[in-house]
């Protein structure tokens, strides 16, 4: 009932969206891999970053992509401070508490945005949002192509950071064995906060890449948090390459099930994948066997 062109176009669009999902999930999986906690506030933080991008554009007329050098360091610092001075001390080292605290932070951010900006949906309209590239028979959105390319660049930068720098080495050491890392003189609290900050920084980039084609309202985080969890669980909690692959798969699944089932039922595909992976293979498709 659908021509192959439409289906392939939907798949390509899914892959492009999926690349951004991967970027959103990158921070979540990084934080899980190192701190072994699920950051429930991840979606709300993304919403906050999107509002920051929107605000910079609305107030100062800064082009969305040019907000990256502003919001990225800002969110890194924000993430660092929140982990170091709120989550870390408040949790008393209990994982269940961390989950509940990040839930609290998520409620806090979401409703602070609601109180500050109201429930209206905002977007950044520009000609570029609708620019289209013709690739053979397919029509692709330029902004989405830029978004996917940007995600790829960030993923490569992350990989370089983790594999080539001392900080990356320290992060990997803490992820592997925090007691041992502590014994060789690594400040675990500091590394935790850096990791958390990096996760938030990745979200800030994702927000800047998303805004040209997407909209923002205070509740937008909820939609992304479900997707990001699914991506992370699918790729194996804590695995960065897994998150990249998971993001692409989820982007495609969403695009195809949206095409076949319609807008409102389209999300079901994601939840079903999420539940099935958790129940049948909680280490993820690419993770080691339990």
């Amino acid at each position, binding site marked *: 009932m659908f021509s192959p062109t439409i289906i392939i176009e939907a798949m390509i669009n899914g892959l492009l969206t999926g690349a951004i999902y991967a970027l959103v999930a990158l921070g979540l999986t990084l934080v899980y891999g190192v701190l072994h906690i699920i950051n429930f506030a991840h979606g709300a933080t993304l919403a906050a970053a999107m509002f920051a991008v929107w605000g910079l554009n609305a107030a100062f007329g800064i082009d969305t992509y040019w907000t990256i050098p502003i919001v990225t360091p800002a969110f890194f610092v924000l993430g660092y401070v929140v982990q170091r001075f709120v989550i870390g001390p408040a949790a008393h080292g209990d994982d269940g508490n961390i989950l509940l605290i990040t839930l609290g932070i998520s409620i806090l951010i979401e409703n602070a945005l609601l109180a500050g900006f109201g429930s209206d949906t905002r977007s950044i309209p520009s000609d570029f949002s609708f620019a289209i590239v013709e690739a053979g028979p397919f029509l692709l959105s330029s902004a989405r192509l830029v978004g996917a390319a940007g995600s790829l660049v960030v993923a490569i930068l992350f990989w370089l950071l983790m594999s080539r720098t001392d900080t990356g080495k320290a992060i990997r050491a803490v992820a592997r064995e925090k007691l041992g890392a502590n014994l060789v003189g690594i400040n675990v609290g500091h590394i935790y906060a850096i990791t958390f900050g990096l996760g938030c920084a990745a979200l800030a980039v994702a927000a800047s890449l998303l805004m040209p084609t997407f909209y923002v309202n205070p509740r937008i985080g909820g939609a992304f948090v479900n997707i990001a969890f699914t991506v992370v669980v699918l790729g194996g909690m804590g695995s960065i390459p897994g998150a990249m692959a998971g993001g692409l798969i989820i982007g495609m699944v969403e695009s195809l099930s949206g095409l076949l089932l319609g807008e409102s039922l389209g999300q079901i595909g994601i939840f079903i994948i999420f539940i099935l992976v958790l129940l049948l293979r*909680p280490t993820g498709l690419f993770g080691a066997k339990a």
Partner: protein
Amino acid sequence: MIGRGYLPIILVTLLIAATPLVISSNSFFNFTVLVLIIALAAQGWNLLGGIGGQTSFGHSMFFGIGAYTASMLQTHLGVNAWLSLVAAIAAGALAGLIVGFLSFRAGLRGSYFALVTLAFAELLRVLANASELTGGAAGLLLKLDPGFANMQFSSRPTFMLLALAFVFASLVITQKIVNSRFGAHLVAVRENEDAAKALGVDVLTVKLKAISLSGAMTAAAGVLYVQYFLYIDAGIAFGIWISIEALLAPMVGGRGMVLGPLIGAFTLHGLGEITKSFAGRVPGIDLIVFAIVLIVVIAFASSGILGLLKKLADRFSSKEGA
């Protein structure tokens, strides 16, 4: 002779039951009915999450199943409201059994269990929003027809007493469980599963019992909601709001403690009302307060208000003894 732990339950219930004698403000009863419904949903959460240690982020699934079962049976099939209530409670228990069987058998604990419950609730929300049986995005309206037979009461104090009766029952059931072998097993599972197994505790069965009872209680809260507001849609029934309410109340009041959810629900919503009276019509301001309270409680008083009171009482009595 009143058994261990029942006296505070009776006192608190009598205190609330007496309010119509001195208060006649409708907004007070609206407030109290909502708080009691939340306390009932939260007691369900407390049984599984507080006493049993299995943190759920998706208790709205039971609330919604209760609310939709009751309203669908009444609107589509004309079933009596009280029979619908029984069916809704059974449906909540069954849903708990199914979700519990799937996730506990797969060995999901901690954050993983929290996430899978959230996913089930979200899945149901999307389905309820799309299906014709549940009225789709428009939701379901219950026909207004006050009367005992329809479990609808035009007098707000009367409905409050009905909700209170449910909460009282949930408190007594929870206290009975806490005093029993099953309660001890449930706490043992929370504290250390391996040690519990070694002592002959059938961990899976204990968890399944807990989640079905939990589902039944929260489903009853869903029924009360729809009987009071006579309207339900997917966002209310399966929305994250009630999952959060059900979790916050026990956390703040004292997780794992019988009166924790009730005390927590009153405290949170009391604070919410006070904030609203100061801040006026700022949207989300009450939830901002809730979130801050949650973080502060976890940071400084992990056993909640009741835990703090107990600690103070212990300190006081040990000073007396010294």
